[in-house]
Each structure stands twice: as C-alpha cells, then as structure tokens.
C-alpha cells in the first residue's frame, strides 16, 4: 500500500472526527468501496461535487500538503492478472447475491492468496445471466461483487481498501448460450488480481 504519511494523518484525523461526531451506522455487511478518498469516511462527502475532484478538507495536524484526487483504480495496483484466481470464480443462484456455502471454500482460497501476497489488491467483477432487465442486472451484479468483498472483509479480515468492485450486469456473458447451463455459468464473480 502506498499510504503516504499525509494520508495516514488525514485518515487518523478523520477517524477522530467520525468518532467525535457519532458515526451513523451503516446496515450490516455494508462496507464503503474504495474510490475517491471521501468514500473512506462514509457519508462525510455529501457536499462534494460528483464531477471534478475538489481539494480535500485537511484535518488537524495535517501538514497541508495536497492530496491528489484519487480515482478508483489509481490507488489500486495497475497490472491485472485474470488467471491467478480464475479457478476461484464464484457462481450464484438465479436472482440471488448470497454466497452459497458450496462456494465459500473458493473465497477462503482467495483470502489465503491475498494474505500471502500483501502487495496485491483485488477487483471483484460481478456478472448476471440475461434473465433480468439491464439496469436491474447491473445493480444485481454489483451486489454479487459486494457479497464476495464483504465475505473477505468480515470473515478473513482482508483490509477493505484492498478490494474494489465492478458490475458488468449481463454485458459480459461467459457463455452466450440460451440454456440453463449457460445461464448458470454467467451468474458469477470473477476475481482479478491487481499487481504493482
């Protein structure tokens, strides 16, 4: 992790502020997804413009050095390895985003891999079969990616900042067929390792 001193100080100060303010509880099994730095502090970024990045507020004790507007991916490692965890692709029931017990050992292997490669990060890609409307599936795919991410965070204590998500909905079918067998292959999370 390329956490600079400034960023550490910033996060530490934000944590203090959050504790002091009385953090609003998120629903269970919901963890912010890494992206722009404000997402690290939950709802503290409501007033931030959606578009061009604004300078971040500096916490007490910060040196005043500017923190760059980090984009999803920027703070993640850039080299994608799609094969390392390909056998661990997790499959889902129709219209479900819960990790099936039969699929959990694969996620346990993903956690082991991440623990033995502390410099690597993970992109979870959620996908759906075509039996749903497009934007519904884009949201469902995201929930599938989040389900794997939460499992890794909650069960294996993987640092939340190491895992990001992307949903392709039904746009990246693994099998273009129109059979139940093909649909089952398409309802999946793929794990892409991000290396320095």
């Amino acid at each position, binding site marked *: 992790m390329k956490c600079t001193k400034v960023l550490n100080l910033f996060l530490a100060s934000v944590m203090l502020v959050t504790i002091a303010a009385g953090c609003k509880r*998120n*629903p*269970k*099994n*919901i*963890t*912010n*997804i*890494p*992206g*722009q730095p404000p*997402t690290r502090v*939950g*709802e503290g*970024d*409501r*007033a*931030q*413009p*959606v*578009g*061009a990045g604004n300078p971040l507020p500096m916490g007490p004790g910060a040196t005043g050095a500017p923190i760059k507007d980090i*984009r*999803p*991916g920027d703070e993640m490692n850039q080299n994608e390895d799609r094969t390392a965890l390909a056998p661990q692709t997790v499959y889902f029931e129709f219209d479900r*985003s819960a990790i099936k017990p039969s699929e959990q050992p694969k996620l346990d292997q993903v956690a082991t891999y991440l623990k033995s490669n502390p410099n690597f990060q993970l992109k979870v890609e959620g996908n759906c079969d075509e*039996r*749903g*409307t*497009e*934007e*519904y599936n*884009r*949201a*469902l795919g*995201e*929930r599938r990616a*989040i389900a794997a991410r*939460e499992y890794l965070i909650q069960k294996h204590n993987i640092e939340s900042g190491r895992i*990001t*998500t*992307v*949903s*392709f*909905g039904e*746009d*990246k*079918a693994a099998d*273009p067929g*129109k059979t139940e067998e093909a649909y089952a292959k398409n309802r999946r999370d793929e794990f892409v390792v991000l290396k320095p």
Partner: protein
Amino acid sequence: MNLSRRFLLPTLGLLFSCFIRQISAAAADDQPVEVYSRAAVRVIPISVTGYSGEANSVVKFDLEVIGFQITDSATAQYNLAGKNDGSQVEGRLTDRLSKASLLAKAYTGGTTRSQAHTLADEVVQAILRVSGIARTKIAFKGESPDGRTSEIYISDYDGQNSIQVTRDNSLAAAPAWVPQHLHLLYTSYKSGFAWLYSHNLSTGERRPFAKFGGLNTSAAISPDGKRVAMILSKTGSPDVWVSNIDGTGLTQLTKTAVDESSPCWSPDGSKICFASKIDERRGLFLISSSGGPMSRLNVGGVPSPSEPDWSPDGKSIVFTSQRGGGFDICTVAPSGGNADLLVAGEDPSWAPNSRTVVFARRVGSKRVLSLLDVPTKRVKDTAQVAGSRSQPSWAK
C-alpha cells in the same frame, strides 16, 4: 374508469372498447393464457395517396406509429393526398365525410425525410390536436454485432439517421437526456469501472460526472433539468442518490442493504420511482426527491417490476415486468392499482406526447427498438441494424 381520462380523444368520438383485461395476482402465474390487455382505442383509417419513395414510406410510418391505419380512399375517415418531387413534399388533408379541408401545405428545405416528418406531424396536430413526435430524437445503447462492445448512439425517433456518440471501444449503457438540451448522461466502462459521464453533444465536451468506488449508473435528469438521480454503491450497496446537475449537493436517498435500480422522476420533480427488492419481493418504490421513507407502489401483482418511466403528463408509469423467462411492458397509475400488461418487451421510455413508448424487443439473440402506441397497442420496429439496440431514452 381511468382509461377515458388517459386516452380521451373527445372530438373524434372514438369508440372505446372497454375490454381491458387487468392483471391480477391470480392471472400472473405463468399461465399460457392471453394476458395482454386489449387496445383501448381503435385505429383511425386514413388514405395516403400520391407519394413515392422515401416520402411515401416516412409519412405512412409516422401515421401508423401514432394510431392511424392506412386504408383506401373510399373507406378512410381522412384522405391525405399530395406529391413529392425531391425538392418539396405537398399534402392536402380532408375529412372524407364532411369534405372539410384540414390542411393544405407544401414543405421545403431540409431533406425529403424531414419534409415528410413535418407533414406527418401537422396531420397528427390537425386530427388528434396533439403535438407530433416525428421530429423527435432518441438515444440508446448499441452493441457491436459480436456483442463484445457497446456504444451510445442517438437517432431520429424511427431509428434513422443514427449518430455514434461514443467511440470508446468499451461498454457503455443507460443514456439519459438532459431535457431541452443536446446533452446526455450515460454509463461507460472506459476507465475499467462503471462511471457516469456528462456529454454535451453540441460542443463534444465530456467529463466524468460520478466516478466513485463501485457502481455509478442509471442517471436520470429531473424534468426541470436541475437535478440528477443515479445509482451509486460507494457506501457499500447500490442505492438511489441525487445531486444537482452540476454535481454539487450529492445526497443519498435510500440506504438499503439490497440493490436499487433505474430511478425516474415525477413530472414535478417531487418524487422518484425506482426498482428494489424489499422483504424478498421485487417491486417499484416511491420516495420524495428530497429524502424520507420509501413506499411500495402497488402494481396489482404483476411479477418482478423494474425500469419505471413516468409519463410527462404525470398520469402513467410504464415499466417492465419479468414473467418466467419473458419480459412485458406494463403501465400503472402513479397512485398504484392494477397494471395493464401491454406487449412483450423491456426498457420502456415515454415519448414527449405521453402516448407513445419506445422499448426493446428481443428477436432471436438480439434486441431491436420498437415503438408502441399505448392506446391502440400498435407496435412498429425502428430501423434495423446488425447489432443489438437497447436501453432507449426519448428526448424530451
């Protein structure tokens, strides 16, 4: 009966065939019965004579889309006669029984297509006394023939004159118009993630609009053009968020642990309708656009509703219902009640006339865009291309 309120055409004395069969929970159990509602309004017979080539096909297409049936002069209720010679399109519209002349004009300038569209719009105005839609635009997602990439396109409402908006060789989806502007918001995976972009089609200027961690998608601009509803998952679950059109004032409206999708605005901007799944049951929900509790919209038991779009006149919400492996276009009153099942299809978007709907229809392995005249239930496909077209959004 609210049909008469919705489709009232009093000057025509049209007969309503009040046999709309409304769907109840009992009828939706995957039975192979004819569950679609019948047409509420009959087609209007009109004759179209004297035209050739493109002008002929354009005028006829435009009139059929809005609920006319092209017949011979002797049986038609209205006669449209004219000619086209490459430089202009002429039209004379008469009421066959009263012999009253309703329109007599020649259209010059532009292309033959645009002249013919203008004539059709004026015929619609003269007979139905509503604005025509033949010169409006749609935006949509267009897939490459191999389905590996998708780009955003705009075209005339009939699918002709399409213009490719994005050239990212990536995936793009869910375009939405800024009302009254040549300006789109859409989702692109250009960065490797699902981000929202704001794209001014007049200047070509494009900038990321929402690029938070996780999902950024399903932009919908309020009818006054001042606010944007969208789906973001940055706090750990796909939720409905709103911001100002410049991106300021970002506010999280829903905080569920399930997935929300496809927000749309009420015409006055006070409410947002979206799809979610609460208590293990998929449904449409309403929430104040300034926040507050969400409430389920009663759709009379049609299964798995999603993709709502609120009509500009405020009277109807069109949406997609998923039934077994198929999809149906349905409408329901914003106050809830029994939904009308109209035709097979998905991704509906209202025209500015609150009468016509553009939607996607699965044909074999691809999707085509079709136009549905809700009162007469006539469906006409737009121009065909090699790849799939879906997620249409009608410019308003």
